[in-house]
């Protein structure tokens, strides 16, 4: 048998753009940079919520309200929200590029991912920064301990 030649994985479907910002390169860099930061944020999130104290069984409004009353956890959660959604959304874009072949399907799927990412980033950011840990008129035993002092 003679030489086996493996074709280059893919030839570009349109001519390679040589001017302007190389967005694919920055996306590639973003996946790696955000991944490193996400390890710290996600492992810290899981350790604090699931390993300390009674873990999952201690999570309720009082627990989360107490966390989100603190700017440290507000910024922790917002950073995690933005970094993870954009990382995951861009990763999903890679999968769509790999598996969806019809231009129509690709467009619809990528728009759906983009819409989900934008809506959830806006929603999550609003929740974190407009949230009241001591909502008026709520039973005191459901609220974080810090509300008793108010």
């Amino acid at each position, binding site marked *: 048998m003679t030489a086996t030649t*493996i074709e280059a994985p893919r030839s570009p479907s349109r001519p390679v753009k040589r001017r302007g910002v190389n967005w694919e390169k920055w996306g590639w860099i973003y996946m790696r940079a955000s991944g490193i930061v996400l*390890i710290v944020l996600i492992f810290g999130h899981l350790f604090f919520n*699931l*390993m300390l104290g009674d873990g*999952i069984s201690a999570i309720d409004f009082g627990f989360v309200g107490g966390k989100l009353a603190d700017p440290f956890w507000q910024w922790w959660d917002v950073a995690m929200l933005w970094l993870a959604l954009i990382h995951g959304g861009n990763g999903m874009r890679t999968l769509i590029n790999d598996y969806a072949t019809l231009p129509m399907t690709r467009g619809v799927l990528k728009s759906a991912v983009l819409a989900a990412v934008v809506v*959830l980033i806006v929603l999550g950011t609003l929740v974190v920064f407009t949230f009241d840990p001591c909502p008026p008129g*709520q039973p005191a035993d459901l609220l974080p301990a810090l509300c008793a002092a108010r």
Partner: protein
Amino acid sequence: MPQQTAGTLTAAKKSTTSPRPAGTLYRGREGMWSWVLHRITGVAIFFFLLVHILDTALIRVSPEAYNVVIGTYQTPLMGLGEVALVGAIVFHAYNGIRIILIDFWAGGVKYQKLMFYIVIALWVITMLGFTPRHLINVFSH
């Protein structure tokens, strides 16, 4: 194993009778399976994240609404699901470091198989630390 790019394979380099082309990072064995797992875990985490942001957003609605929904995360079945979810995240995170090392560290391609087994070993250690603790929290309350 000789290092070469994934693109071409010449007769001179074909030293085995195996029908499978040698020397590619993403065809068969550790390279491919780590990629398959990375992809599946990435998608699974993404879909969980969509739901998780929605359930956490209920904190802005009312204490009762949040407590009812988070209560479903505390059932035995979901407790087991959380072990699977944490397992997926931990694999994706550790293998993500492996990918970054393959890209940026000069020895990365040469040691990618070894690094895959290190990822598996660290995953087992992490899950041995997490799983008992989490299952006690799930089943003793």
